[in-house]
């Protein structure tokens, strides 16, 4: 067995792969946040709760209606996306004219309420959700045992991230969206219904969070705290990538997953902190983030 920095090679490769898998979740979650921030200028602190709601929607669909994983992968984002639509229409849209901080406070408050309600009804230790039969089992890669489901998560995450980036950067719809962010009155003058566009964008960001929630349900137990465990890290990812930069948050998500994975081998106690150390360093050197445009 060969060694790299005193760690057996196969173990290190395994850790790199695990880092990529976790990075896929970071990328998917930060993508939704980046879309919402980039196009709406709202710091959506409720993102973690919406991610949790996505997982719970999948669990509820299975438990009460017998609807399995595959339909839930579509249905749950639709349901939670509709909830996001409602949220945007009723409360969030009232804050666009105010400072960022108000949006942050409102969405933070919303996330406390949502988590509290779920905790009250479902307790704190979570609900079991099985891996779908088609993806259970694992593949022996020689240097590690790779669960098929985790492989699926990475593939789906990459596809969804790339598709979102394509839509926003390369299509006419994306161009309209970006134009609306730059100069809303002008776009409206061209006959585009900007408020509706904004509402739908928020709903799409929320749907992405719910989609990640369904993906996460079989790996982590479905519990009311699952969102708050992720949200702080995901915010760090968005900040490091550059607020609002879509490509930035995708690449940073994967990259930080790997950094975290390596820390778990060399200094496990620091693995919860390393992302914030990176954040501090990046902010000192490039205040706009790795991929952000300087204001």
């Amino acid at each position, binding site marked *: 067995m060969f060694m790299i920095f005193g760690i057996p090679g196969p*173990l290190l490769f395994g850790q790199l792969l695990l880092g990529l898998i976790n990075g896929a979740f970071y990328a998917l979650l930060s993508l939704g946040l980046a879309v919402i921030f980039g196009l709406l200028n709202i710091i959506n602190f409720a993102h973690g709760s919406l991610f949790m709601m996505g997982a719970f929607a999948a669990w509820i669909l299975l438990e009460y209606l017998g609807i399995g994983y595959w339909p839930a992968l579509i249905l749950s984002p639709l349901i939670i996306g509709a909830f996001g639509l409602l949220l945007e229409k009723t409360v969030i849209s009232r804050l666009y004219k105010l400072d960022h901080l108000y949006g942050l406070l409102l969405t*933070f408050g919303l996330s406390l309420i949502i988590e509290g309600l779920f*905790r009250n009804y479902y*307790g704190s*230790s979570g609900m079991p959700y099985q891996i779908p039969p088609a993806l259970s089992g694992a593949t022996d890669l020689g240097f590690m045992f790779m*669960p098929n489901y985790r492989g699926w998560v990475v593939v789906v995450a990459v596809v969804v991230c790339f598709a979102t980036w394509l839509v926003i950067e390369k299509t006419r719809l994306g161009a309209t969206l970006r134009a609306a962010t730059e100069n809303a009155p002008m776009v409206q003058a061209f006959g585009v219904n900007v408020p509706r566009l904004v509402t739908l964008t928020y709903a799409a960001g929320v749907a992405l969070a719910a989609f990640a929630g369904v993906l996460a349900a079989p790996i982590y*137990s479905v519990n009311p705290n699952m969102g708050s465990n992720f949200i702080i890290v995901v915010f760090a990812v968005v900040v490091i990538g550059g607020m609002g930069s879509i490509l930035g948050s995708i690449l940073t998500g994967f990259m930080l997953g790997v950094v975290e994975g390596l820390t778990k081998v060399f200094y*496990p106690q620091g693995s919860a902190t390393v992302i914030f150390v990176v954040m501090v360093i990046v902010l000192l050197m490039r205040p706009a983030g790795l991929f952000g445009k300087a204001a």
Partner: protein
Amino acid sequence: MTPIVPITRRTLLGSTAAALPTILAPRRGRAQAAAGIKIGVLNDMSGPYRDISGPVSVACVRQAIEDSGVVAKGIAVDVLVGDHQNKPDVGAGIARQWADRDGVDMIIDVPNSGVALAVAGVAREKDKVYINSNAGTADLTGPACAPTTLHWTYDTWMLAHSTGGAMVKQGGTSWFFITADYAFGHALERDTTAFVKSAGGTVLGSVATPFPGTTDFSSFLLQAQASRAKVIGLCNAGSDTTNCIKQAAEFGVTSGGTKLAGLLVFVSDVHALGLKAAAGLVLTETFYWDLNDRTRAVTKRITAKSDGVVPGMGQAGVYSGALAYLRTVAAMTAPVAKASGAKTVERMKTMTFDDDAFGTSTIRADGRVLHPAYLFEVKTPQESHGAWDYYKLLATIPADQAFRPLTDGGCPLVHA
């Protein structure tokens, strides 16, 4: 600006929640408080330990009041509830306020070893009875023992001795620990290591995982697997443990022949995991609802008050502890019991208690409550016959062997 990590909903709420017991506690004058007994249930109502304590513990206290029959004897009992949010300062603050202002006579439950030790100090200073049912650290009856403290349900020594010892006997001679990086995790690792070594086993390594905030344990599990240890000891609790078990199955760690030792697993954790993921797990509890006719009967009474949630050992310990306390109060009369917590505990140590949850219990000089412990194995989905039918009994460890010998704990009360 505060550092990033503490910005959770709990830190932000911390200051507001310190005021919570004020809202929950009925305000009464001192004259009225002197008439009856006040029990304060201090636990986690909103965080990771809610399901092992929380509202079900409160239901257990109410059931204990009913079963004790003290109300019929003219002793009024009030119950106060506080949420310590797993913060020692918040927990100690509530305990102090209960003692100083609300006239609470006994504090019960208190999961989380850090909070438990802080509250023990307050109870001692204020001369109030302190029955801890849900914290792990064996230090409560060791160096940190107090004349007002009783440790009711389990402790790290008992878990390490029972589960650890059983695993070594089954051939698990080499160990690797995945340890939550805080007081409880390290205490559990220390105690288990001692047993493994004294039984002739070896410890190949350990990894300290950040607590709280770790959700993905696959990396640590692979490190454990790479050490070629026969047993991976999980020195953690709650969702950390359930995530470890789930992910060990996912990464083929357990199917590769490595065994998992869940050193602290509650029935609510098994419920959360589902039998498919938890089957075969060996664990120790001092109470299981389906143990005998008496445990089934008391569970039936409690679930009527707990929305059907079956109590785990920590909550059953709250029932048992509150019942024993109320019986002592009835024997001593309320004014005498209220006058001194230490005197009440002293009296309790001379008595023998019997209840439906734990059977016969006695209390030792260091405050350790003695009753049998049970080694269980989690059933497979095929073996389970219905909701909450999760365990099969492997062995019963008699009360006199289940806990740390009196002289080994280093409790100053023992030599005094």
